């Protein structure tokens, strides 16, 4: 009897990848124009491979959970693979998201993309 799946709740209550990353070499800041959520994605890339990823998110439970998912999925991938992560793959990790919350996963994808862009520019 709950709005979110257990997997979403676990991510929301115990996210593993939150926090500022001081030595990040790519940072992506995004805001959701619809609901006002704000998200920052930090990545540390070494030899095109994302070694570390973390987030800071001011947003709903779904925004926090999807932020955690995108970081987890990005770690270990090279930048090209990371850019190919889809909403569908992310939502699969949570089993499902309420329809009105699907846009949260696109925000996370956009955040990661911006962080990778930032890394490419810094190179």
């Amino acid at each position, binding site marked *: 009897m709950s*709005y979110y799946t257990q997997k979403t709740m676990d991510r929301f209550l115990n996210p593993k990848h939150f926090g500022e990353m001081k030595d990040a070499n790519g940072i992506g800041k995004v805001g959701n124009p619809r*609901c006002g959520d704000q998200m920052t994605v930090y990545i540390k890339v070494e030899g095109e491979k994302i070694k570390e990823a973390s987030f*800071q998110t001011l947003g*709903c439970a779904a925004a926090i959970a999807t932020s955690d998912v995108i970081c987890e999925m990005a770690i270990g991938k090279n930048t090209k693979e990371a850019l190919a992560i889809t909403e569908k793959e992310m939502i699969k990790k949570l089993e499902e998201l309420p329809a009105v919350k699907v846009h949260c996963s696109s925000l996370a994808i956009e955040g990661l993309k911006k962080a990778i862009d930032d890394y490419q520019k810094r190179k």
Partner: protein
Amino acid sequence: MSKEKVYFDYAATTPTERDVIEKATPFLGERFGNPSSLHSFGQESLFALDKARKSVADFLGAMEREIIFTPSATQANNIAILGVLKECKSSHVITTSIEHKAVLEPLKKSGVNVTHLPAYKEGVVRVEDVRESLKDNTQLVSIGYANSEIGTIQPIQEIGEMIREENKKRREKIIFHTDAVQAVNYFPCKVNDLGVDLLTLSGHKIYGPKGAGALYIKEKNKVFPIFYGATQERGFCPGTENIFAIAGLGFAIEMLSKNNSEKTRRLRDKIIDVLLEEVPGSKLNGSREKRLPNNINVTFKGVEGESLMIALDREGIAVSTGSACASGSLAPSYVLLALGLAHEEAHGSLRISLGRFTTEKEVDYLLEKLPPIINRLRKISGK
């Protein structure tokens, strides 16, 4: 205190009073007659309907024939507004920017010229603003008695008095409507004292069942039916009545006078004081003084309301929020924005509403659980 279910969302709906359930339940069972039927089955239901009507009329200081029952307060507001405006499309209406959608939307649909009065930072409209907005063709003023989100109370009696004076000069009288859904629990609602021509109330906000509202329509007022097909409720609400819910509303309203709001007010003040003191970056939305005894609406900087609500729910605590993330439309509360709050402030708002069954222990549990959740979410947001 171990984890349990604690309800702090009385503004959304109230638990049905046990005594009300007991008295109304026969109308779901053996007393099933249609009140329009002339046989004994029907007459039994008609008797219950009349009795509920008398209870509401007594509470409002009105005549029984001035009360109609509706399936909800939203529908009552529609009947009131669209019914007044039906025969006249070129008129002017005054309402507020913080009104419930059940008032704003029918007004929008009616196509008349509408003035939305400001509620200022405190969430309270000014009588002089109402007076200054009156036009020669003002036909209706609709202002809610108490706001459901921020709990602020409007000067209904003063506005009613001013309109009464103004009406002495007019051939076409201004009709004054108030949505009193949130107010009836705590404030006197004698219609003559308030000076209102139309008043809306709801059963499920006063410990009655869901499925019944009531509309007071002062005699001799020009209100036209907007629904057709039968004659129930003087033709204003045609269709077979929900006797269970209506009887329940009647029993619930009878119990209101016995309700003492002092305890609720004290617990509300305790929550406000503790939160504002213990949680940095918190502020109360809406006037502290002109406020329902059961409403707390606070903004916490650096957190988002939906996540706060969901985390509290996990601890068994039910509250509500004006955050965009919790609304189907993904728009933040227009009521909070009307008070001048920034989008981000509305984003971090939480409504805690108390009621008849709220205990000190529950309040202490909330005050124990809430601050650490805010801290945790602030760590995640980095703000």
